[in-house]
């Protein structure tokens, strides 16, 4: 029996185990939207802007480990997706996005709503396809899913012409993936692993740097075993957060510009750094020529291009973090690094005294972001999925949230996309409906994708939203304060009445102005059956500390 290209697309998606699509219809994708009616297994979530579809798909992918799927129309539908693609590319999030394209005979003629999608998305996707023949769509989908979620995950774009959506052909199911140039190495080289084990066994001052790769490869328990067996402290990158429970005695905090003092400073005291699935990007390393010069660096990453890109590595291991750790463990000796671990305490105490206490337990003044975040986190018993937007709210959320289980913290790390939070939170809730989901955003970023509030209502999603309103583009204001002589330029932001707006969308909301109301308001939000928005009036000109200013080394963090 013959099927239309659109039907074959739906069948192929179902074959890949897709159950949710985030999308927005339009002229050039109408045959697919028509076919969707015949495949109720494919739940379609109608977003309010295609960027929202991409971020929602990212949220879904990051909590489920399955590729997120987007469906959009040609031209503006596809171009609206670009920010999300670039975001997913940077943060290694598997997406499969399908856009309609004008009919093949019109391509290249500047037809109505034509955009060169393959051209535009080439630099923001792992791979892309232009499909103008229905007999090619099944294979493209199969390859796209394989590419998106193997090796270093990333977004794949399929641009599908309208005539090919209409045209009929046989549906062939059992296709082989034919990608001769794509063979990601998952198993680490044993010789290298042995060398790594020798270094770790010899080491007196080892430190594990856990990145996103630990979560992507589902290696949390292997990470824990390594840390426990050889008694090695673990520091996380922003995207490595929640790969190890915060409460674990070997967890020493977050790396990076606004990370914790101890792991950053101790990076420059360790004798062996064990980097697991991280990119050593500039926010983590600070000034490169002062980064860990004394340490031997072991770097495990699935992408060979990441190894040696930024830091010089003694022992490179190309492979999947989980597989490499499995091979490594039997070669690791039991060890005790009590003295070394205690050295972290000095810096931990210093940060606790000078920053953490001041931020989380103030008695006077306006509410601080940190109190809100720690109150949410502890109310949810460290078991919520926390989605942070971008800016001060993000850094504070990363610093003061606590986690019990993997994949509990989502944010836009690589691209730093304001507006990520709300739609990503939607995707996270769709992917993990049984878990409590909190979206934490600033007043600026919240307004960037605020229209997705309506998606929440239409889909009846029980997400909790905390808007931390400082009436400023806080992070930019902080930089103007610290590095531009406090000359404020375009950072003061008037905000609408978020409560009225939220109620206008149909989401219950309340404003919290005083410290004494924090716990109860958060409690009410949690108890409410359905979405709930809390707007917090926070201290307007607070800065996030510690900070590693641009050009400073990891051991040159400022505490004030």
């Amino acid at each position, binding site marked *: 029996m013959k099927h239309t290209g659109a039907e074959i697309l739906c069948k192929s998606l179902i074959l890949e185990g897709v159950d949710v699509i985030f999308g927005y219809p339009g002229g050039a994708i109408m045959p697919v939207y028509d076919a969707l009616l015949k495949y109720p297994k494919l739940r379609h979530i109608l977003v309010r802007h295609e960027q929202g579809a991409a971020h929602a798909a990212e949220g879904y992918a990051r909590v489920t480990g399955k590729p997120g799927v987007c469906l959009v129309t040609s031209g503006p539908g596809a171009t609206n997706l670009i920010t999300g693609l670039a975001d997913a590319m940077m943060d290694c999030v598997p997406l499969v996005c399908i856009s309609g394209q004008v009919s093949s005979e019109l391509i290249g003629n500047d037809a109505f709503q034509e955009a060169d999608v*393959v*051209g535009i998305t*080439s*630099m923001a996707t*792992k*791979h*892309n396809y*232009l499909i103008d023949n229905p007999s090619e769509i099944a294979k493209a989908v199969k390859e796209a899913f394989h*590419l998106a979620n193997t090796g270093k995950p990333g977004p794949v774009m399929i641009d599908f012409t309208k005539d090919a959506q209409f045209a009929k052909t046989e549906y062939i199911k059992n296709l082989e993936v034919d*990608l*001769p*140039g*794509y063979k990601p190495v998952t198993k680490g080289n044993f010789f290298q692993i042995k060398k790594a084990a020798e270094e770790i066994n010899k080491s007196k001052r080892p430190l594990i740097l856990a990145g996103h790769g630990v979560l992507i490869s589902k290696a949390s328990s292997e990470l824990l075993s390594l840390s426990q067996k050889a008694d090695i402290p673990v520091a996380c990158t922003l995207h490595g957060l929640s790969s190890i429970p915060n409460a674990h005695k070997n967890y020493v905090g977050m790396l990076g510009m606004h990370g914790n003092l101890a792991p950053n400073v101790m990076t420059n005291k360790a004798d062996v750094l064990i980097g697991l699935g991280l990119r050593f990007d500039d926010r983590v390393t600070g000034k490169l020529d002062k980064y860990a010069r004394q340490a031997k660096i072991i770097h495990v990453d699935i*992408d*060979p*291009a990441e190894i*040696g*890109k930024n830091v010089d590595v003694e022992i490179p291991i190309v492979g999947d973090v989980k597989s490499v750790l499995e091979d490594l463990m039997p070669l690791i000796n039991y060890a005790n690094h009590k003295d070394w671990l205690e050295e972290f305490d000095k810096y931990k105490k210093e940060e606790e005294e000078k920053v953490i206490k001041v931020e989380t337990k103030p008695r006077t003044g306006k509410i601080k972001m940190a109190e809100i975040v720690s109150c949410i986190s502890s109310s949810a018993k460290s078991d919520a999925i926390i989605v942070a937007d971008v800016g001060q709210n993000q850094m504070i959320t990363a610093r003061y949230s606590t986690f019990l289980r993997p994949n509990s913290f989502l944010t836009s790390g690589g691209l730093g996309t304001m507006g990520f939070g709300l739609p990503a939170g939607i995707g996270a809730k769709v992917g993990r409906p049984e878990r409590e989901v909190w979206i934490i955003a600033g007043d600026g970023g919240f307004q960037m994708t605020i229209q997705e509030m309506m998606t929440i209502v239409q889909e009846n999603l029980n997400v909790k939203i905390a808007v931390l309103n400082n009436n400023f583009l806080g992070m930019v204001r902080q930089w103007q304060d610290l590095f531009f002589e406090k000359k404020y330029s375009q950072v003061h932001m008037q905000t609408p009445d978020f409560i009225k707006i939220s109620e206008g969308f149909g989401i219950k909301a309340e404003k919290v102005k005083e410290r004494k109301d924090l716990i109860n308001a958060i409690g009410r939000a949690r108890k409410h059956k359905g979405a709930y928005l809390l707007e917090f009036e926070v201290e307007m000109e607070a800065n996030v500390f510690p900070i590693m200013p641009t050009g400073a080394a990891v051991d040159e963090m400022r505490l004030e």
Partner: protein
Amino acid sequence: MTKDSNLSTIIVWVQNNPGVLFKLSGLIRRRRFNIESLTVSHTEKPGISRFTILVRGNKKTVEKMSKQLYRIVEVVKIRESYDKEIVARELCLIKVDTSKKEDRSDIMETAKHFRVKVVQIKPKYTIFELTGNEDKIDAFYENMKKYRIMEFVRTGRTAVFK
């Protein structure tokens, strides 16, 4: 082969999908690799094209570049090659003003010295064709510069392994 020790040859085999040239050149641009030349052609294998890229940079840069190129899904194989491992050639065409009698014999003398092929002689100009390594082409070009060069093109390096 070329005296410039800072030049390396990278040979890349790719699946010949539409858009792969765009992706390759896009990546080179984005990562700011400094390339001297890039040639593309079909190969003995159907569906596989071959890029010869002459790149400026040390061993580390070249290694970084080939790792980045491997990220392109269509890239099947990459070989970084040292001059002693390959036979490399380039072709150039040069159109020189030979309308002035007094120049003509000098030009022809130089051409002969470089063993350049004469493709066309017209009253106003002569077209030469020269195949060789980059240094040879550079040297010929330098010699011709004192005359009026009307057009000059070169293909960029292409190479096979010894």
